[in-house]
């Protein structure tokens, strides 16, 4: 096999942890979806371990390391939601921390989004309800939360909050 390629793989393994997924796939951050797939296929043609099945184990391990990272990069960049989040993260000050995508971050991000609402009106009513709760205006809070739930029927935070307020109101009636 090409000695030059061997050296290339060798150095790539060493610097890989400092590269972002765009750099791994040799792509621009503005790349189109089609480019991402094309790049994935191109890089696979270079680093797919099956091409080196009869090479020394040491080289196979190395090239597999590179290929795994290629797959990882593709998995994140081919998903619109993940790509947007990832691109934002690596463009920020904590770039180094985010070079490899973490599923946990995605989950947290999703939870955060859902917490405060995903539609403008849902967000607004939820904020109004929170303010009402602060002022102990539970009736007002209930109306706003009902509207928020109407906007986002699947938002579990809204639904739970509404139930909480309803419980408080029920307690008050009893007293």
């Amino acid at each position, binding site marked *: 096999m090409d000695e030059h390629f061997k050296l290339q793989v060798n150095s790539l393994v060493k610097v890989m942890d400092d590269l972002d997924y765009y750099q791994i796939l040799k792509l621009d951050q503005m790349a189109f979806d089609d480019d991402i797939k094309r790049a994935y*296929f191109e890089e696979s*043609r270079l680093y797919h*371990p*099956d091409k080196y*099945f009869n*090479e020394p184990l040491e080289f196979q391990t190395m090239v597999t390391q590179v*290929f795994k990272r290629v797959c990882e990069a593709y*998995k994140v960049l081919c998903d619109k939601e993940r790509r947007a989040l990832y691109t934002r993260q690596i463009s920020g000050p904590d770039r180094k921390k985010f070079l490899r995508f973490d599923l946990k971050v995605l989950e947290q991000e999703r939870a955060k989004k859902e917490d405060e609402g995903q539609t403008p009106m849902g967000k607004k009513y939820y904020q109004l309800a929170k303010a009402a709760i602060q002022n102990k205006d539970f009736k007002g809070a209930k109306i706003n939360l009902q509207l928020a739930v109407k906007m986002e029927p699947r938002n579990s935070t809204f639904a739970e909050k509404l139930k909480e307020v309803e419980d408080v109101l029920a307690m008050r009636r009893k007293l």
Partner: protein
Amino acid sequence: MGRAVGIDLGTSTSCVAIVKDGKPMALPAPDGRFIQASVVSFLEDGSRVVGNAAKAMMVENAEHTIYSAKRLIGRKFFQAEVKKAQAVCTYEIVEGPNQSVRVKARGREYSCPEISAMVLMEMKRIAEAQLGEEVDKAVITVPANFNDGQRQATKDAGTIAGLNVLRIINEPTAAALSYGFGKGLKQKIAVYDFGGGTFDISILEIGEDVYEVISTAGDMYLGGDDFDDRLIDYMAEQFMRKHNLDVRQDRKALQRLKNAAEQAKVELTEKLEVTVSLPGIMEEMGGKLDLNITINRNYFGQMIMDLIQKTFKVCDEALQNAHMTVENIDALILVGGPTKMPVIREAVKSYFFKDPHFGIDPEEVVAMGAGIQASTLVEARPGALLLDVTPMSLGIATAGGLMDTLIERNTPIPTESARIFTTTHDNQAAVKIRIFQGENRKYEQNELLGEFRLAEIPPAPAGTPKIEVTFEIDANGIVNVTARDRDTGQAQSVQLNVSGGLSQEEIQRLKSEHHKGEEVSKFKPGLELPQQ
């Protein structure tokens, strides 16, 4: 050095293939058939018969003839599928060590990988007889939704059979490979795989020499065997109406009925009507009762239509995961004997708005793909690169009862994910971690793959050791775990206890044992099928 072959180790049938002069081809057995039954029959004199000849013994030697071992391989004794098999199988299924499944024949217990190894050895022999040289390497196929344990057990079966298992690949991927090999296609394809025991659908994109699996979905409990069951029930009920006797209560009669049902199903592919006649299937007060029932193709189609419709729900799921609709699919490949049935072909055609590809026999297409992959690997000039995915999410148990997902399903393989673990009390020497595979948020609802211990942790205050554990899914879809101390970089010992599996020592012991066994049966006169 021997040859490398591809083997489709199926639930009901198996097939072996090679690439010759750049062309994939299935190899015939001495009986002239390209497809062999995945059946092992243990005879009274201690010898065994494998393949189509073994299947022919299913009636007379029902209790000692093992079939559909693939439904049990890599499973644990308490699982629903095992209980289901126990209720319907004519052979005995018992619990082995470590919650494993064992089958019993002639008073001896066998693990499922041993039984599969016997089928693989038969395929190896068929290939050797055809090629006139030794075969010692193989690519073996498994259903796309096989989990880690099932893949590992299949690999173990190969090792016991004396084969160097080059790779475990997914059946639909193999089918795509034999469809696209050497054609330089740029297409999106669907592989509709209706086997004896399971249904799988995969959506792939072919980019000349690259085969990317975009999504895959399946139903582990749906297969051609279910069609047989419908026919059996129908015929048994007809018989009962006439004679007030249940054929299903008599083991031998049931086995005859089963064989007849399967044959009727196959014949209905060609014929519009078949008559099943089983003279003297039951006895009543000394007299013999006959079973004579005529079934027409349309009626049979109605009987199984709900099962076929079930497959399309799974297809919907796969397309949805791939962000596609049927219009995006350029070609449709059929896999498995049942897809030869006109009723399935029609239903599939109307679902996909497309005629399926007719170039390759659905019963040989998977083995041929495996053969291509085998030759590709040994010749090191790949005409095809597979980009496959893992069918299930992999995660670890957390204190709250939830699964912490490390690798999601449909992630391209090989892949890895790392996590840092630490201790919860001072001078703790070991940490136990349980790995699961499945989609439920609660780990209890998913399948336990195994448990590993990080042992010999140097004494330190709680929370200070930082052990980085890397979970890898390799190209075979098999999970490997490694660990290292994050500060010192030193490898940390990992003791992995795979539930239900065989140990390395057992595999090696079985390997040498079965090879002796093979020698014995080779020279048993009368058991071998006549040479061509």
